[in-house]
């Protein structure tokens, strides 16, 4: 609680105690008024002062002013009707202030929890210099400097490990609880916590460009990009108060005048009381507070889970997603090849792999890597000679005295080897030994473990159609699409054709729904920006992705997408609920008041109560069920 809140709480407690006391004191007449008015001033002085200043500034529809009019009016009516019921005015002011206090506490609490959540900012770096080790602030470290990170410390800047082995806790950035192992030569990013071993890191980026800085900047500017709900509510608030005040004026004047014309008793006091009650519910603050609070909580919840959303507007858009278009490589698949099957001809499977792996031993091509991985044994390089890499075709080499050609069908054709087998689907790597065909190995991109599960859950979460786009051939695309379970796929697309494909789907979908494109952010920037919502996956450390996308998933787990959609749906659901509920209560309250079925007590209870409920409801957006 800050000073202002403590003061307010004190005044609320004092007023409450004094009011209770007054209820039991048998005072009457002018003393009764003086006592109650004194108590009223304890709680309402601030509001009256603000109201006065509002008048000086020409602000008639200021909420303090309206509350002051309503309560002072209630006093005047009590004197006029000689009812001596001053309690009502005091109570209205008391509840109003209690509501204000509650609201400010709730807002303060969510501000704090977001700040705690974003506690990834490193406060110091241990710099290794010629004169020993010094502790400096991360801003002072320059690119190329060497820093030491002890176990338990946060990595202050992005860099490359020079010495040491350790596991890193990346949960503050990615929401992923499994630690990441790093060793010499691995890149590390700022904001991770070093867990087990001391590391020596060469800094590769200045602090301002480090991952931590980028993330903090992104998160803190996110809630400034307002959603349609916020725009709607602020426009609504601007007209709501004047309209309610206008209605109050009509209510105070018209019915009594009509009564007079009909020569009935005018009942000025009754209608004035109803008009004053209108003013009590004329403040739109409850309505206005819950919307940004919900979005703030939703954005906070997302970043806690390693999902960076660049604005409330994108959170809103994400919740309306019906079409989700995926890039294949690196998004649904790992972007790493592996051997899925071997079809030998005249040799054993092991022999086929042995020759292929040995011939490729010097190559770092992803396919070569996959062959070596599938072989699994150490390769004795002395047995391999005459290695020739033929770009776009494959490799030839001499292994154990055998002339081996490993490559695609072009290479086979060039070396005059006929392919006697019918190749099914996928990328085949053919092997020829001494000019005769020895079989082929099927390599393909491995589907991420969680991709099929994520597709199923996305469908459950309300995504209508999932599409996969890829530059790969039809066979490979079909295989991956089936394995993952996307509804549609398009293959053989060049980057600009992916944009066209997305544009087609944009026309297909219903107008109010949203199309999201999910890519790895590396070479699909045009598509990311063309889609309604661009989601970049595994954005950690990739500047291009953070720039181009609207939503960045720090982890490359497709299940994160499901979380993102769930968080957005929940948040927007809460906002909807709050708006409808608050408006319904306000209008009901106004209607009841107009017909004399409620009083000021009821009005202030409804007003403060609805605000408290809306705020509590908004705070729910902080948490999701996994």
């Amino acid at each position: 609680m800050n000073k202002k809140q403590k003061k307010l709480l004190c005044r609320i407690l004092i007023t409450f105690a004094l009011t209770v006391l007054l209820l039991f004191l048998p005072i009457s007449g002018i003393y009764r008024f003086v006592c109650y008015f004194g108590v009223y001033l304890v709680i309402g002085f601030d509001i009256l002062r603000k109201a006065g200043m509002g008048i000086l500034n020409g602000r008639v529809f200021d909420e303090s002013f309206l509350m002051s009019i309503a309560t002072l009016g209630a006093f005047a009516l009590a004197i006029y009707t000689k009812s001596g019921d001053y309690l009502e005015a005091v109570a209205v002011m008391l509840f109003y202030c209690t509501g204000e206090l509650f609201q400010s506490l709730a807002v303060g609490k969510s501000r704090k929890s977001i700040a705690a959540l974003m506690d990834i900012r490193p406060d110091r770096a241990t710099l290794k210099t010629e004169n020993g080790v010094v502790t400096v602030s991360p801003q002072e470290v320059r690119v190329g400097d060497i820093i030491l990170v002890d176990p338990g410390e946060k990595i202050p800047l992005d860099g490359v490990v020079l010495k040491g082995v350790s596991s890193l806790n990346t949960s503050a950035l990615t929401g992923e609880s499994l630690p990441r192992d790093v060793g010499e030569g691995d890149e590390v990013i700022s904001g991770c916590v070093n867990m087990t071993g001391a590391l020596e890191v060469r800094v590769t980026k200045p602090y301002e460009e480090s991952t931590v800085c980028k993330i903090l900047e992104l998160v803190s500017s996110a809630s400034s990009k307002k959603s349609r709900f916020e725009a709607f509510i602020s426009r609504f608030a601007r007209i709501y108060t004047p309209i309610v005040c206008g209605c109050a004026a009509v209510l105070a004047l018209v019915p009594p005048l009509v009564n007079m014309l009909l020569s009935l008793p005018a009942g000025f006091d009754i209608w004035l009381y109803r008009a004053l009650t209108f003013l009590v519910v004329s403040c739109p603050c409850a309505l206005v507070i819950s919307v940004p609070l919900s979005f703030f909580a939703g954005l906070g919840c997302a970043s806690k889970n390693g999902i960076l959303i660049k604005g409330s507007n994108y959170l809103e858009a994400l919740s309306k997603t019906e079409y989700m278009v995926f890039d294949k490589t690196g998004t649904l698949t790992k972007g790493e090849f592996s051997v899925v099957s071997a079809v030998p001809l005249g040799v054993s499977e092991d022999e086929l792999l042995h020759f292929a792996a040995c011939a490729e031993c010097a190559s770092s091509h992803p396919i070569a890597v996959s062959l070596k991985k599938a072989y699994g044994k150490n390769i004795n390089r002395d047995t391999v000679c005459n290695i020739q890499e033929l770009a776009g075709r494959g490799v030839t080499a001499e292994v154990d005295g055998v002339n081996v050609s490993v490559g695609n069908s072009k290479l086979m054709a060039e070396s005059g080897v006929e392919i006697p087998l019918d190749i099914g689907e996928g990328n085949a790597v053919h092997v020829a030994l001494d000019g005769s065909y020895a079989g082929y190995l099927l390599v393909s991109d491995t589907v991420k473990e969680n991709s099929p599960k994520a597709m199923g859950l996305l469908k459950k979460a309300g995504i209508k159609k999932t599409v996969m786009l890829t530059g790969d051939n039809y066979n490979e695309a079909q295989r991956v699409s089936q394995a993952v379970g996307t509804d549609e796929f398009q293959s053989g697309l060049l980057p600009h054709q992916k944009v066209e494909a997305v544009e087609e789907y944009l026309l297909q979908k219903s107008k109010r729904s949203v199309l999201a494109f999910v890519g790895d952010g590396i070479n699909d920037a045009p598509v990311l920006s063309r889609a309604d919502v661009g989601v970049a996956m595994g954005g950690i450390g990739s500047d291009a992705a953070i720039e181009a996308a609207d939503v960045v998933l720090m982890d490359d787990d497709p299940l994160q997408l499901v979380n993102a959609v769930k968080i957005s749906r929940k948040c927007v659901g809460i906002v909807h609920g709050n708006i409808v509920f608050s408006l319904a209560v306000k209008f009901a309250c106004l209607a009841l008041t107009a017909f004399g079925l409620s009083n000021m007590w009821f009005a202030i209870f409804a007003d403060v109560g609805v605000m408290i409920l809306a705020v509590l409801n908004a705070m729910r957006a902080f948490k999701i069920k996994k």
Partner: protein
Amino acid sequence: MKKTYNIEVDCANCANLMEKAAANTEGVLSANVNFMLLKMEIEFASGADEKKVMKAVFKACRRIEPDCEIDF
């Protein structure tokens, strides 16, 4: 040119009104008030005197919320 200032304001509606008042101040191209983060982002018109403009913005905001603060 855009600049961000820390502000202090108690109610969300006032924050919205302050945003509008700031945007209507001479020398301000656009304004954005973030109630949850208590930040005001002002985009100045080219050639505007920042200090002078902010004084005017502050005055306009004070008319809306007498005890609001802007750090500038």
